[in-house]
Structure formats: structure tokens, C-alpha cells
């Protein structure tokens, strides 16, 4: 553990900065809420033409299921996301060397950014 401490104390110096950032955050939410409120959706209609779409952060999953036809659906729908999440969950144990600098842990960097890139890539693909 690091023992170096900055000369500034948490209170009030950092607490002030945190409060400023919290204020900005809430401000951003309020501005977005005023400018782009969600519309009332269409009422459920079983006979209307409709192509459903999940929330944007699930688009990658939705796209992933496209690649696994037939009885393999569960691979895209459950298995791969499950493996992805397990890797994420166990990251500190898989990447357990003492080195903290990203340059000195290339495998972790490759896996981490690979995972991120595939999620972003799939999301992009479904937006096309």
C-alpha cells in the first residue's frame, strides 16, 4: 500500500471538488432531460409492423444472437456473455502480477481492450 499522502486533506478540499462534480453531473442530467425527454411509446399492438430494439447497452447482445442459428442460440444468448462476465469478474485474479502499469501487462491489456472492442464493435454493427 502507498503511504504517500497529499498535503490537502479530504475535508474540505476534496469534498469541495466532489460536490462541484456532483453538481455538474446533476446539471447534465437535468439539461438532457429538458432537451430530450423520452416519448410515450406506442400502445402494445400484436398486429402492427414493428421491429423491436432493446436499450442501447443491450444492443451488442441482440447483435450477438444473430450469429448463432438454430440450436446454437444459447451460445450467443447465454454462454458467451456468461464467459465474458466471468472474465470480468475474475480479472484481478487472472491478472494478478504485482505490476500496475498497463505497459507491463500486455496480456491483460489485450484481453481487456479486446472485450471492450468486441462489445463496441457489435453495438456499432447493430446500429448500421
Amino acid at each position, binding site marked *: 500500500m502507498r503511504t504517500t499522502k497529499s498535503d490537502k486533506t479530504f475535508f474540505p478540499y476534496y469534498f469541495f471538488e466532489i460536490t462541484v462534480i456532483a453538481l455538474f453531473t446533476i446539471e447534465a442530467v437535468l439539461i438532457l432531460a429538458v432537451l430530450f425527454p423520452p416519448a410515450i411509446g406506442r400502445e402494445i399492438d400484436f398486429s402492427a409492423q*414493428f421491429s423491436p430494439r432493446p436499450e442501447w447497452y443491450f444492443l451488442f447482445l441482440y447483435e450477438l444472437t*444473430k450469429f448463432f442459428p438454430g440450436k446454437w442460440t444459447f451460445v450467443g444468448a447465454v454462454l458467451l456473455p456468461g464467459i465474458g462476465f466471468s472474465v470480468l469478474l475474475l480479472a484481478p485474479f487472472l491478472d494478478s502480477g504485482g505490476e500496475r502499469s498497463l505497459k507491463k501487462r500486455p496480456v491483460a491489456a489485450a484481453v481487456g481492450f479486446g472485450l471492450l472492442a468486441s462489445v463496441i464493435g457489435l453495438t456499432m454493427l447493430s446500429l448500421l
Partner: protein
Amino acid sequence: MIKALYGMLALIGLGFLFAGLKVIAPSGRQDRELAWFPLVPEDDVPRSGVKKSELVYAVSGRERKARVFIVASSGKLTVLSAVCSHLGCLVNYRKESKEFVCPCHGGKYDIAGRNIAGPPPAPLASYPVDVKNGMIMVGVKV
């Protein structure tokens, strides 16, 4: 005494777990029976072709709706569910290619409802059909 304490705690825990699982598990009846519901008059269906329709049926008094396709080809009448067998989106009929196409992941079915392309694992479900007094009746398991 410690043993009795742990025993009691385990008993309370298991009791809540058992009751909880009983409550969470869906209580739907498993023995579904076939019931017949009217769809459209026979005269409304073309001799050959596909007609989109809405099936209104009831499950234990509650009204439900399902989108179906009435397919008439070579003198035979079939009623296909429009629910894609992949992930449950509603398929659309393409007249030009005589195919059903799912808007979600591009699954394709031929006019008999057989899955021919894309991710669907099974054909479109077809309902039992009967004609009574000029009315097309459809059997639904409720």
C-alpha cells in the same frame, strides 16, 4: 448449545428458502387443453395466397391476441403463428419471394412455414384448423 443454535438458524433459513421458492415458481397449469376459437369466415380467405389476421382467444377468461397468417396453397388451408421461432419477434410476409422474414435477425421461412435461412431453429408453429358453418376455427391450447 452452539449446535442447537446453528440448527435453529439453519431451520429458519431453510424454511424461508422453501416458502420463497414455492411462491416464486410460476403456478401455471401444466395440463393445457385444446379449445377452438373462430378466426375469419371462409369466404374472406383467397383460394391461393397468404392473408394476415389476428386471432383472438381467451386463457382462463382473459383475452389474448396473436398474429397469424392464413396460408392457402394447393387447396390446403393452414394457419401459421407469426411468432419467429428464434427469439419471438413477429415475422412479415414478402409477396415477391413468397417468404416470411423476421425483422429482428433476418430469419426466413418458406410459405409452408419451414425455416430456410438465418438463425431460426424450428418452423413457424402451425395451429390445428377446422371449418365449421363457413367459419375457420383455430385450435389453441389453453
